[in-house]
């Protein structure tokens, strides 16, 4: 079974703090993603990576950065946390194979509260 783990289930940080969210997958997947989930807005893509040290912006990258130094690990960084970044953060990974069923595997999420 594919396993995607996230470092924390719940996190409380203060405005202005630097926040690191860590994600690890154990299936040698090339692609990794960070989403935020907010009620009524669904899942919105923040950043994704298709290879080590490679990253691409998603739909809402402002205020976030990412790091992928090893294939299995993808980190999301909030350089200076703000209250509007209070949200559920979901990490996902996938193996892209053309022409067949394509699946993203999600971690359990980190609920971040910024006060």
């Amino acid at each position, binding site marked *: 079974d594919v396993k995607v783990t996230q470092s924390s289930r719940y996190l409380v940080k203060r405005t202005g703090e630097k926040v690191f969210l860590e994600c690890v997958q154990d299936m040698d997947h090339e692609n990794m*993603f960070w989403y935020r989930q907010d009620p009524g807005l*669904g*899942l919105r893509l923040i950043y*994704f990576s298709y290879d080590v040290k490679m990253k691409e912006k*998603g*739909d809402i990258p402002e205020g976030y950065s990412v790091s992928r130094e090893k294939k299995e690990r993808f980190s999301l960084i909030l350089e200076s946390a703000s209250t509007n970044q209070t949200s559920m953060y979901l990490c996902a990974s996938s193996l*892209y194979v053309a022409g067949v069923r394509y*699946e*993203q595997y999600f971690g*359990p999420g980190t609920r971040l509260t910024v006060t």
Partner: protein
Amino acid sequence: QQQVKQSPQSLIVQKGGISIINCAYENTAFDYFPWYQQFPGKGPALLIAIRPDVSEKKEGRFTISFNKSAKQFSLHIMDSQPGDSATYFCAARWGGSARQLTFGSGTQLTVLP
């Protein structure tokens, strides 16, 4: 346009009834349409998916109906059970070598016993 519009936002169904969730898209470059199911405290998980060259896909009690000309697709849950209570997301993927999914806004389904 990369948007996928999903409705309704919430749905309450009696046990044994049919649950129907609808999605619409604009971009004809989408080539793959999955549905994800999310239980409280868990991440979303792939439920069922369809490609645009097929009009219907059925897996157990779950069916996707796809209308390419209308650019709409829907999830039907037959004989809905309380265990189906979850949030459902439709999604779409760009064609070619794209890896990203664009998700709908989600539907919270409650099946009453």
